[in-house]
């Protein structure tokens, strides 16, 4: 009985994960093509822009976009880090890169949050 429960839970988790991954992949590809619907109220344009770094990775962001990214990064930093502990001060870039990878595993923060926080903490 116990084995069936565990197997059922694993299958459900895998199915949910796969559906979610597919949905997010679709959203990403739609965003990259430039034909995506406007970002929702919660997902700011700056966040979308950072998620799709491949599309504009080499293009220097203008001042307003950089500022928007920084503000969004600060917001994510306070929201995510502050969930468990007092948000720390800024660290040097390579230190922060290691710490954020640790927190990605430990606190299970999302890929997008990790990138925004890392950008905010290192620039």
């Amino acid at each position, binding site marked *: 009985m*116990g*084995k069936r*429960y*565990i*197997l059922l*839970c*694993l*299958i459900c*988790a*895998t199915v949910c*994960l*796969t559906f*979610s*991954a597919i*949905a*997010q*992949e679709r959203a*990403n590809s739609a965003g990259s093509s430039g034909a995506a619907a406007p*970002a*929702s*109220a*919660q*997902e700011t344009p700056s966040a979308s822009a950072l998620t799709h*770094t*491949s599309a504009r990775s080499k293009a220097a962001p203008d001042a307003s976009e950089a500022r928007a990214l920084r503000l969004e990064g600060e917001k*994510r930093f306070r*929201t995510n880090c*502050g*969930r*468990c*502990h*007092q948000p*720390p*001060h800024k*660290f*040097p*870039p*390579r*230190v*922060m*890169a*290691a*710490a954020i*990878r*640790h927190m*990605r*595993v*430990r*606190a*299970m*923060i*999302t*890929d*997008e*949050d*990790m*990138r925004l926080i*890392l950008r905010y903490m*290192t620039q």
Partner: protein
Amino acid sequence: MACARILAIAFLLSTLCASRLGAQTQSDEEVTPVPLLTGSSGFITTFNGGQPDFHPIVTPLVLVPIGQRWLFETRATFETDLAQVPGRNGYHGGPVQKEVEYAQLDFIANSYMTVTVGRFLTPFGIFNERLYPVWIRNLQTDPLILPIGIGPSNASTGAMIRGGFKAHPKFNINYAAYFSALSTVSPVDSDRFAGGRAGIFIPSARLEIGGSFQHGLQDARSNAFGFHALWQPPALPLDIRSEYARSVAGSGYWLEGAYRLTQVPFHQNEFRRTQVVARMQQYFVGANINDALQPVNIKLVEFGLNYYFIDGLKASSNYGRRFSVAGNANVWTMALTYRFLVPLGHAGGE
């Protein structure tokens, strides 16, 4: 055995799927991370029913990023109790207890999944994994229900998949599923069980809720489950955290509120560093006795005051009143904790 085989196959399939997805969504951190020695140290003084306990503790954590997707992390604890020795003045340290709390290798397969193998903190509830270090916790005493679901040494030995991802523009999902093998080697012993935890985080409300489940694969093959919640009202410097856990050995809950006095209009330099904390918890003994849990029903109410000198250095004190059939008692705790961080290489220029 068959169950372990099923889990292993599911694990391999998940990893394979994850790697395929990862080809498209590989993390592209632009900054090369440096290995870190971080962790915390503290000196914790407790008066429990009048009995003093002086407790220095050092908990180093080593992080070694490898390439773009791997991370090796291990945390150890060195602690001792200072006690009065008959015929000698003052307090003297006993033997230093050393323990590797966890040593795990993480593979970030893609944006949705990280695969972990080795010895890892059991993801049951939130306290053991996320709130345990002395520099993080708001009150220095452990919750009464902490031993439920986390194994004999707070950790599991086996494998785990976990991750967090944006499932909807308004909320994120995080999950962990793990299998632990039996280990009788002290102090790195672990039980044989499988389980999982899932949670939803709503960033706009700064609310996270979730649940944990665990199925024992040895002895009585009993189940344990729990729920957790964290909420930071966006308009207030307030943290509200709570956990409930239930197993055959016992059940209980704790509810904690911590308010940072940043809104006090005077003496702002002092008050913005000050935090008041209150926690209520209750524990009920179950059918099976577990040495790690309390032997009687207990109700415990605690109040605390924390002062943050600088980032990572905190002084805390708290008073608690314990009610139980074994006798009521006061619990006083004072502590000084510090979080350190040392890069083991070039940290990157400012």
